[in-house]
């Protein structure tokens, strides 16, 4: 967990985890969203420090863009030697004239240690690559809540950037992987809590025998199954290029962002005082789930998005 993740990253990248959404011609596996989702779940469950969602989404854009992104950057990312972080430019600062970009991206996971930065402009599908490390400044987001990864606010002042097209799937992919990360944590913690209540005895029997404990865990298992099937379905549709993919991703985001912290916070209750300790670690997943919702979709923005897809907004335009 935490800062040292890059030391082991080339090993994981060697297994192929960085290349699931990179075309085969560029050395990846194509567009295997479901595989990337599984990897993200596992990394979330392991509280891994990498900015995996942003890395996968950005290398997907870089390798698929019709503009020639620096080949050694893509190769380096696939090998796990280089890292590209993903940011979304604040709308007010979306200036990318001839003299480079000037602006702010408020929440960028892994910005401080990344070798490159892909910035999505909120109003268009274009992305801007800043391949020169140290060309941007990063202010840490305070107060720090998620301690398993590092996130910062990125500022750019007349920084040269390469415009890349073909980023239509980048944001849905990014957000879906963040939801998968949260889901992976919830699944692992649910499993761990179930084991715990089987072992922990009180009043002469395992606490998992008490209905007050058992029934809540079952409800959480039902919620988790719905989340997990929703994320898998969204991954399948996004991978297939289905026109319904964006809606399906929003549904998964809404389910995960509105249920995950609730489930995790109740797992602390069901684990009792030991769950309240730093060492037990449930809190790490709560922190991370909250942060994922902030980076990607929170219930409010996912609901707005769905309202657009469902045509509830009247004549006002939908957000994508």
């Amino acid at each position, binding site marked *: 967990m935490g800062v040292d993740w890059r030391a082991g990253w080339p090993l994981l990248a060697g297994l192929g985890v960085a290349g699931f959404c990179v075309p085969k011609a560029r050395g990846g596996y194509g567009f295997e969203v479901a595989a990337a989702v599984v990897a993200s779940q596992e990394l979330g469950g392991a509280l891994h420090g990498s900015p995996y969602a942003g890395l996968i989404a950005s290398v997907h854009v870089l390798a698929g863009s019709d503009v020639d992104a620096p080949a050694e950057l893509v190769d380096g990312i696939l090998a796990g030697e280089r890292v590209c972080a993903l940011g979304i430019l604040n709308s007010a600062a979306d200036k990318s004239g001839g003299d480079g970009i000037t602006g702010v991206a408020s929440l960028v996971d892994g910005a401080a240690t990344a070798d490159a930065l892909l910035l999505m402009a909120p109003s268009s599908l274009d992305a801007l690559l800043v391949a020169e490390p140290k060309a941007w400044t990063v202010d840490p987001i305070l107060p720090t809540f998620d301690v398993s990864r590092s996130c910062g606010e990125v500022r750019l002042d007349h920084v040269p950037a390469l415009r890349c097209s073909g980023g239509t799937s980048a944001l849905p992919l990014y957000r879906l992987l963040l939801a998968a990360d949260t889901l992976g944590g919830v699944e692992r913690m649910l499993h761990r809590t179930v084991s715990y209540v089987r072992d922990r005895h009180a009043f002469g029997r395992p606490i998992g025998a008490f209905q007050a404990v058992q029934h809540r865990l079952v409800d959480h298992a039902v919620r988790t199954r*719905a*989340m997990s099937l929703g994320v898998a379905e969204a991954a399948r549709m996004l991978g297939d290029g289905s026109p319904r993919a964006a809606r399906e991703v929003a549904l998964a985001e*809404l389910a995960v962002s509105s249920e995950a912290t609730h489930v995790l916070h109740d797992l602390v209750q069901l684990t009792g005082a030991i769950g309240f300790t730093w060492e037990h670690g449930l809190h790490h997943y709560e922190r991370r789930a909250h942060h994922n919702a902030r980076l990607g979709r929170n219930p409010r923005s996912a609901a707005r998005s769905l309202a657009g897809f469902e045509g509830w907004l009247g004549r006002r335009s939908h957000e994508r």
Partner: protein
Amino acid sequence: MNAEPAEPFREEVRAFIAARAPRLRHQEGVRVPQSPDEQREIRRWLRELYEAGYLGAGWPAEWGGTPDHHPLHDLVLMEELFRARAYRPLDQVMLASHAILAFGTDRQKADLLHHIRRGEHIWCQLFSEPDAGSDLASLRTRAEPKGTDFVVTGQKAWSTDAQWADMGMLLARTDPSVDRHAGLTAFAVPMHLPGIEIRPIREMTGSSEFCEVFLDEVRLGPEHVLGDLGGGWAVVTSGLASERAFVGANAVQLEMMFGDLVSLCRAARIPDGTIAIAHEDIQAQLAAALSKVEGVKLIVRDTVERILQNEEHPSDGPLAKLAYTELNVELCELALEIIASSISVDAAEAEVVTRWYENFLWSRALTISGGASEILRGLVGRQLLGLPRDS
């Protein structure tokens, strides 16, 4: 889901329902015919469903089944019946036919099955009692052996359709001295026998779906015993597992309910004269409901896929039922909250409001009957999570 191979069949079923289903006034939760005419129509409809091979196709060929029957077709039929809000055969009809097929003697099969296929025998269940609901095995109705006969005395409750059923599947205690499950025997009981008295119970919906059935020294012969003496528990539980893929039709039901929720929000006017759906807070509530609906639909479809591939886990059915019925209650509560916050509903959608009121009241029947949510949570806790029994 593997829907494509079923598409031509679906079209065919849809056309059949449109042409042949009885046109009864649909009230959510009400299944008992309200007049002799309705009763005739329902019997005619059931007969036609069997004749057309839409029902009973999974039976052995010698009893009228189709050898190349695909279980997916059972699901498609049920989905389309839901979609058309048409009369659907009740569980107990299926339960009876499965119990007869699995446990009946050749004589019983020959005597009983053709009546079911012709709509001549409506079956009811005589399982629950005033003091034995979720804990069914504690039932006290006695079937006392007298020579080769049995004399049945006791009181049954919550019997759907008993007021017009021709046959009842009875679970009674034949031996009080052994283990409570082992002492139970199943019987196929003609409902017109002397000593049987049926009293419909008026429910909170205002209708009378369920009945109390009093059995006062009802004399049954050995030909009425279904399965082994003392083997009644296996008979009723095996039947309950039949047509498991029907659980999939709940996905259609949820889809339709969500459609009703959106229609309601487009037609309900809040005090300032605007429609409910124009408000961001209502849209947020709708989105949250939609995300839950889609989640439970995925759970239901996932369950069906495993059932069709014979890979289901024992907890799958209970989990799907728990998820579906609890969400059903939640949707009804949301709909009533929206109706409560409105001063009027556009006349074109008045029917939707009626449906929500009916659904709201009926929703509690679904979380109590066929495995109460509390029982299902215990079951899923033990079977899926491996948690210990609370004892």
